[in-house]
């Protein structure tokens, strides 16, 4: 299950962050998302280490915490997507698929002429789409 998704802007500022857990761990998830930016930075700055994923937007597993797994995605405009999931056994393909759909939703949201680039995404449509994507996460592999 997805615990949290986030869109992170150029100054590493959160543009959109939404948690989907029942438990009261939103603050903890914020911390996790924020900490994962270090890994994103590390991967982006040292592409040698990441090897074959050099030109890929999908950054892979960023770091495991005791209960979560954090995945990252970097768009061509250097906007970062972070996914925190509680499933400890996640297929890469599912995560990639999720990010692809999430990216599409993000592009649509920022294409809104009333959206000012660099500001938080407050679109309700975007939030709805994201929650749909989150709900369908992993279903494709199960079904």
């Amino acid at each position, binding site marked *: 299950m997805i615990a949290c998704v986030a869109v992170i802007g150029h100054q590493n500022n959160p543009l959109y962050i939404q948690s989907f857990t029942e438990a009261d761990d939103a603050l903890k998830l914020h911390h996790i998302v924020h*900490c994962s930016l270090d890994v994103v930075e590390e991967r982006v700055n040292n592409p040698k280490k990441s090897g074959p994923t050099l030109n890929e937007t999908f950054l892979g597993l960023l770091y495991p915490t005791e209960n979560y797994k954090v995945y990252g995605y970097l768009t061509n405009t250097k906007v970062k997507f972070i996914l925190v999931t509680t499933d400890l056994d996640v297929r890469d393909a599912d995560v990639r698929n999720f990010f692809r759909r999430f990216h599409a939703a993000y592009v649509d949201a920022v294409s809104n002429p009333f959206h000012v680039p660099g500001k938080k995404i407050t679109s309700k449509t975007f939030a709805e789409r994201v929650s749909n994507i989150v709900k369908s996460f992993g279903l494709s592999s199960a079904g």
Partner: protein
Amino acid sequence: MEEYPEELRTPPVTLIALVGCPQHHPLISTHLHSEQPPINTLALPDLSKISLLLSSADKNSLPPPDPSSIPTAGILKRDWLLKHRTRVPAVVAALFSSDHVSGDPAQWLQLCTDLENLKALIRPKNIKLVVIVVHSSSMDDISEDGMIALCKRAELDSKCLVIFNPSDSSQLKQSLNKLGSTFAELANTYYRDEGRRIKTRVEKKSFNSNELNIRYCFKVAVYAEFRRDWVEALRFYEDAYHTLREMIGTANRLPVIQRLVEIKTVAEQLHFKISTLLLHGGKVIEAVTWFRQHFASYRKLLGAAEAIFLHWEWMSRQFLVFAELLETSSKAIHSNSNSALGTSERSFTEWEFHPAYYYQLAGHYLKEKTKSFELSLSMLQNADEIDGSSESVTPSVYVGQFARLLEQGDAFAVQPLTDEEYTRYAIAEGKRFQDSFEIIALLKKSYESYINLKAQRMASHCGFLMAQEYFAVSDFSNAKQLLDGVAALYRQEGWVTLLWEVLGFLRECSRKCGILKEFIEYSLEMAALPVSSGTGVQSFRANECGPAGPASLAQRENIHKEVFQLVSGETGVVSVEDNSDLKVNRENPLHLEIDLVSPLRMVLLASVAFHEQIIKPGVPALITLSLLSQLPLTVDIDQLEVQFNQSECNFIIINAQKPPSAEISNSQQSRQVESAPSLVLVTNKWLRLTYAIKSEQSGKLECIYVIAKMGPHFTICCRAESPASMDDLPLWKFEDRVETFPTKDPALAFSGQKLAQVEEPDPQVDLILGATGPALVGECFVIPVTVASKGHDIFSGELKINLVDVRGGGLFSPREAEPFSMDNHHVELLGVNGPEGEDESPVGYDKIKKIQQSFGLVSVPVLQDGESWSCKLEIKWHRPKPIMVFVSLGYFRDSNEMTSQKIHVHKNLQIEGKTAVLISHHFMLPFRQDPLLLSKLKPVSSSDQGTSLPLKETSILCVSAKNCSEVPLQLQSMSIEMDDDVERSFTLHHSGEDIFGPAYLVPGEEFKKVFTVIPEVESSNLNLGSVSLRWRRNLQSKDQSSSTAEAWVLTRHKLPDVNVELSPLVLTVDCPPYAILGDPFTYSVKIRNQTQLLQEVKFSLADAQSFVISGSHSDTVFVLPKSEHVLGYKIVPLASGLQQLPRVTVISVRYSAGFQPSNVASTVFVFPTKPHFKTADMGDKGMESIVAD
């Protein structure tokens, strides 16, 4: 890691024992210890000691006769490893002195008995025996027989008998080396045999319990480690580990809690061994993978609820130990991990290879332990009870087991514990530790490690966790220091919710420390954070969040209210430290400063814009003051003070709704006081105030501070910002909010500045440059300058004059060399003349007068209103060139220079310098006379050849001067003057006469003068001197006094050098000045030979239509040296008018030079009838002048 026993932490080292001859023990043991691999030595002085050692060991270490029959009480014995590392040697070496071997029979017998005893002791344990024979003295020799007998006696191989000679150094070295290798080999055999013996038990599965299986595996692995067979050791440790994992569900030997504790303790040991082996082998990825497995298989084994804290403590220890292992072997790792990361599967992430990650999690689990420990503690009914009952509990024989030690008289009895007893014991033990400091230490390691890795966000998170621990133990200063750093990062990156949390802690810290100012600053910042209950940011429930409370608009409002109650003095803050009630009141006024980088810009932002960039002194200028606040509730400002760099411009804005306090009206009466109908700051809405201010002082006027007074004793001093260069509000810039301009006029919002330039007061002085047309090169051009006061008195006036080339660049050009001018300035300021009489009386002021070639500085006397003063600038042009004359007057309005301001008046004037006269010249020969000049015959370089003049012949020089200016000129004289120190080598006529009295030359007119030159020496470059022309402006129309000022200007024109040569032949055409129709006249061509040679000359005459000719048409004649030949023709004109005479062509054969008179020279006017001339007045001179024209 330190809490593990030594024998577990270090790899096992082979142990041997030395018996007898104690004097040699240190030498041998030192050598063995330095062997590679090292060997530890047990040194026993004599044989009786070894019996003690081994027999005591005998009791414990003998395995039970039938292991399967007795139920095992535990998995691993606590002291087994230690025993094998320190008490059970693999080899026993008996040292005998050589004289015992070869000495008398009694000694030999003694030796044999000793050997027998020793053999009896070590044989059951398979310990190997080595006999060392020590040379007692260098002389005696050990017989071969004796050695063989000894071997037999000891039942030894010959290689196990070593002869040791300590007296001879080379032999000593040799025997030591032999000892080392023998010991190593035998020990290896011993450990292999022992390992194999137990391994067969494992393989045959000759046991019925997992405990034994684990124990045997462990032993095999340890023996393998003794042999340095790491692969086998690893394999058996792993076997033991897996078997242990299977035991969890099955074993039922012990009560449930203690069973789990034992299993985990053993697992921990096995895991530690495996990790160490992997890491030392450089297999980082395997180690990390192994740790993951270990973590995964045990993380869910929480155990019983009341002892759950034991699990967390155990987990924390796993992470800590692994972190320490990683750190100690980090050098080996770092070289490997990079390549490993690149190639290995992606499931590993960067942090898993860094100890920081494990330290952080160790801290995290320790935190969990603390929480559950507190829960367990609270579950116990009475805390006193546990203290008494746990005293007699000790670790038992087996690893991970505890037992109660009962004292029964002299003997001790061991009694197993129940789970309840054990839990109490564990809690009592746990109470002894201060977990918070442990957590802080762990997090600190992680924090520093992350900082080294430049992972600032991870480090910040650790810092935040650390600060929370500090906060929990009431160490507020440490907490605050950490939190401040963390808050800075969150502020910078705009993580509002995290910042909210951190600020909540900071606020609490400063409240507890009693630092009122910081408390208010943090509170205000929190209140102004962009936290809302809208989408995007979720609110947290109360139990999760820290002292800040949930991040919500309501909470912001609460904080806002709390702060404003505090600053208004209604409430106070209770400090923890000195327990005093802190209040904002008359004794403790509060003053906050907000600068351009302060996070409090959100609380109050002041933007100040002048409507005009340049304002006139004394004229009111509009200034707009805009204030913005993001505080959730509206704020009333009592009074605003605006401060400028010119303090007399400061003004105060009073809220009209509030009565002005007495102190304001008293202290600041002199200032400008404005009143605003209301000073209310609404959230995210600019409060715009426009006022007019006046400045008397020229220069920069900048608004520096806006100070808002919001209560009797609370002020916020806000640095003013220009709207044009204002940064976005931190944090709010990411919010989707309504943004408005600070000023009503959007243009002003983009361009407005908080500073303006105050102009100088307008000068009330006229500066007049009277220019009179273009200047002429060479003359002294005068520009009258008049300073006329029209309202201002002039004190300390200074007139600066600058001459600037209009085309740019200076007035100097190094490329154009000027032969006649010493200085290279083309235009020169010669001087400044004051009005008449002024120069002679320099009184009343300091007369400054500096004149340079293009710059002048003149002081102006004190002038009263209405007076005027004038001077004249004299400028001389050396070259035609337009220049700009800049004249600026600086003056003070009164005599005190300190108080009044300098006022400047500038004027400029472009003046063209023009050449007045253009002098040209040309040479002519006398009419109808042509000397043959040989130099002209040469075809080459005819262009650059100068003029050639015939020697001792008359040549005519015609000089003309043209007025190129636009004013009439007056000429005084024209003459040819020789340059200095050059002797004149030619005869010149008409040179020095001033023929024209005042000769006027209107613009465009040309004046000509004819000189006759007869060169007297033959020279290729005869200096003819230069033409000097004296002229001046004809100023008769002006009424200025030109008599003195206008001097004659001398213009010189250098004549080119001429080539003077002797002409060999001179041809003179002779014919009358005019002819009469039908009247014959004589036309003769004289050829004069001036050489010493006979000259052959060919001539021919062309027929002409208008004439009838008599004479030879063509012929060749010879002209004798220094003589003349005349060709005479009689000609009758047939037509009247200007007629072309028949053309004669003369060719000198010697010089191959042809000659034909020019058309002009061979033309004659034919009158129809004889005219009547009055030729009486005309002399030679007049005739020539006419001809020249």
